Structures are given as structure tokens and as C-alpha cells.
């Protein structure tokens, strides 16, 4: 099993979520984060242009069985891009996941995902 963590642009959350559902990934956990990367944003403060060094992003956390890793990645890649891909579109990280337990039932492993 793998734990897939994706950092995406906030405005793409809905599209990505839809794409995942189409790929039959129904369970995700989402949180607000801020990130620093190549992307440069710009805000205004009393006539000055300010470059925030941390930009709002959304973090997705998805636990999947091996078989679903590629579909998940494809779904995200397909939905998270701005146009042909713009700086700041984000990253996907894949980590090994040794165990999953469903609290409700206590079941473990792949079926619990």
C-alpha cells in the first residue's frame, strides 16, 4: 500500500476531487497548507507590490493499494494543471504505507483502505 501526498493549487481542489472520484478513489483527506517553491505570487499593500514568501496550497493525503497508485497519479496530473502546466501546479509524493486500520471495524490492510 502507498500513501500519496499531493500539493496542489487551491483552485484545482474541486477538479482534482472530481477526477479522483471518476477514477474511483473515494477517500481522501485534505488540508490547508502554504508552500514555497519556484512560483512567485504578488499581493498589494498600500500601493506596494508584496511577494508573499509562502503561498496558499492544498495538501491531499490518499492511502491506496498498489493497483490504484497509477490511476490516482494520472487523475491528479490530469486535473491539477493550469493549462499546459504552470509553475506552482505542485507535486505528488509517494510513500510506502505498511498498515491501514479502519477504526470503525478494526479491519486491517488493503480491505480497510
Amino acid at each position, binding site marked *: 500500500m502507498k500513501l500519496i501526498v499531493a500539493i496542489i493549487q*487551491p*483552485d484545482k481542489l*474541486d477538479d482534482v476531487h472530481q477526477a479522483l472520484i471518476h477514477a474511483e478513489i473515494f477517500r481522501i483527506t485534505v488540508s*490547508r497548507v*502554504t508552500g514555497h517553491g519556484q512560483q512567485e505570487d504578488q*499581493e*498589494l499593500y498600500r500601493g506596494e507590490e508584496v511577494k508573499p514568501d*509562502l503561498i*496558499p496550497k492544498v495538501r491531499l493525503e490518499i492511502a491506496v493499494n498498489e493497483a490504484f497508485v497509477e490511476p490516482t497519479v494520472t487523475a491528479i496530473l490530469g486535473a491539477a494543471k*493550469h493549462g499546459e502546466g504552470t509553475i506552482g501546479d505542485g507535486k505528488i509524493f509517494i510513500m510506502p504505507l505498511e498498515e491501514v486500520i479502519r477504526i470503525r471495524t478494526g479491519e486491517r490492510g488493503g480491505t480497510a483502505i
Partner: protein
Amino acid sequence: MLATQRDPVRTFVPAALLLLVLGVAMCVALTPAAATTLPEQPPVDTGATAWMLTSTALVLLMVPGLAMFYGGLVRTKNVLGTMMHSFAAMAIIGVLWVVVGYALAFGPNVLGGWVGFDPGLLFLRSIDTTVSTGGIPDLVFAMFQGKFAIITPALIAGAFAERVKFRGYAIFIALWSLLVYSPLCHWVWASDGFLLQAGAIDFAGGTVVHISAGVSGLVAALYLGARRGYPRIAMHPNNLVMVMMGVGLLWVGWFGFNAGSSLSSGVKTAQALTVTQVAAAAGALAWVCIEAVQHRKATSLGMASGILAGLVVITPAAGVVQPAGAIVLGFVASGLCYGAILLKNRLGYDDTLDVFGIHGIAGMAGALLLTFLIRAGEMPEGRDVIAQLGVQGLGVVSTIGYASVVTIVLLVVIQKVFGLRLGTTAEGAGMDHELHGEQGYGLLNLN
């Protein structure tokens, strides 16, 4: 804002306009005024004046109140953009009203009574020191009325919240104020306005303010289309706590709105304030009870909506109904608005913050139903209920007809010439970031 970047002309429109106004103002300011103090005029009634000054402040309080109410209901990414709609009305109409709006609304009939005009009223010059028969300086009346002119376009903004460009919006409310509000205001409140002449009762603006805003909002919502993803995506209010604060300020401000419309400080004022209070409470009570029955839960937004429905319905009637009647109106209004909103959801159009569903519906209900609840003796000379109902209907219909027609024309023109509807990406990213380069709640991110 790419469009803008490609189009300096449009960008400099604001600047140009600004300089124009500035120039004119400067000339006016520097040309010595003809002595305007008339030989003898009624003495000032310091008490009535004090209450009108207070009412003016109270109605102004409604604008931030509205900004909070609307701002809290949209999504986080649009909170500032939505509040800006209210504040922009303060800035734009605040200036426009003084420059020309008041002259159009309260000058003597021109163009066959379509609107009024009096050059002396430009920049409020000729009323600098005059006092009305009621003992209230005319400037106070002009400012009090100016607040109504400010809040009306701000109300409309709720109907197309989260999806318009700021510049287009600014131009829209400026033109709407001149072409829709001033005429309607003239018809109903100017001494020679045709609806006033006809004996239509609109104590504090049920037609001029609420019906016109509700109808124009509906037209705009239909013309501009729904927000991207509506209604599929659940769009949660970003801050219901602020919504409650906002409605609290609206309630307080409404005392100025209605009781101030008595243009005095006496029994009539007391009656207006009383029914305003009662109708708001009754509206709130009715709404939460309806929810309790339908969903077994009473919501805070329901409480707020009921308050608003009650306040709107009593607005045209505040001078003529008694407390018991106000309770009836409050209850009925909440019932009707509640139903209207459910209906909207079936029909599926996106009147985002239910401007028509509340201001339109409750405004009409008040304007018409007040006929049946008029205080003994307040009925215009030799009119029976049916006759009066006809007159009220005339007011409602002409308001709806006029407002909707002119609004649609304005929308089409502005959309074509300046652009009004927000582009898809900009809408996705949110108004705060795209249009204003800010974010409402910095506290959400680390700083």
C-alpha cells in the same frame, strides 16, 4: 485581469472620470456662491434635526452591516471582493449623489416627470443653508436620502456575488443609480412625483429600495448566469459569525431607515420605530419556527434571514400599520420568502444571496398587504381598501417594469463594452486574489 493589461484605454477610464469630477468640483468650489440664505425661513427644530442626523448615521451603519452580512455568506476566496461591493457603493454613489443624483431625484419634474432636475441642486449648492418646513436643514434630508441611494445598489450586488469584475460593477452601479434609482426615487418621494401624486404609500422605500433592488438583482443573476459549479458544488458561507454581526448592525441601522423616514421626532417616528422592531422580531421568530418544523433545527442563517424579511416587509408600511399588523406582516413575509427560496432552488437559477427571494418578495408583500392593515384614519382621503390596493399595485408594477427593463439594457451594454462577468480562471482563483490582490483572512496562513 489580462483583458485590462491589454487595454490601457479601459484602464484609464477611472482616472479620466476622476479628473473630470475633480475639475468640475474645483471650479464649483472656487466660484463664490450667490448668497443662498433666504430672507426668512422656518426655525430649526433642534430635536427633529438631532434625530435625522442620528438616522443618517444609523443608515450609514447599514452599509458595513450589509458588507458583513454579504461578505460572510460567500466563499473564503471572495469575502473581500464581496465587501468591496458595499463599500464601492459608499464611495461612488457617495460622490455621485452630491454631484448630480440628488438634483435628479428631488428637482422639479422634467422630461414629463420621468425624473427631476434643478441645476441649483448640483453639488447641493442651493440648499447649503436652507431649512425645510419641518424645521430640518435640507442638507440633512439630502444626506439621509443619500444613504438610501447608497444602500440600494449595494443590495443588488448580492444577486451576482462571486462572479463579477470590479470595474464593471463600479460602472454598473453608477449608471444604475442615475438611470434607475433617481427616477424611481423621484416618482415616489419628490413632491411632484407621479406615484406620490397618485397616493401610493411607500413610507421608507419598499418599492424604491427593496423591490427595485430585488428585481434588478434577479435580472442580473439571470443575465450573468450561475457561478461555475453551481449548484453541484456545495458552497459554504465562510463566516456565519460575521453574518450574525452584520444582521445585528442592519437591525439597528434600520431604525434610522424607517423611523428616520418620518422626517420628524414625534409620535409618527415612535410608531415607525415600534413596528420596525416588532416586524423584525416576528419575521425571525416565524422563520426559525418554520425551520424547526421542516428540519427540526433552527439555523442562525434562518434567524438572520427572518430578521431581514421582517425588516423589508415593514419598510413601506412602517408609517401606517400598528404593532399587531407588524406581527402579521413579519410572519407572512418570512413564510413567503422561505417558500420563494425553496422555489428558486427548484428552478435552479443562481440569485446567490437571495436578493430577490428576500428583498423582492418581502418588498412586494409589504407594499401590497399594508393596504389591509392601515391604521384607522391613515387611509388617504375617500379611498377604500380596494382602490388603495390598486394604487399600491401600480407602484409595484411600474417599479418592476421600469427597473427590470433599464437594468437589462445596462447589463448588456456594460458586459459588451467593459466586461462584467468574471472569467473562469479568475472566478476559480477568487475575487480577492484576482481582482484585489489581497486575501481576507491572513490569519489562515502563517505570518
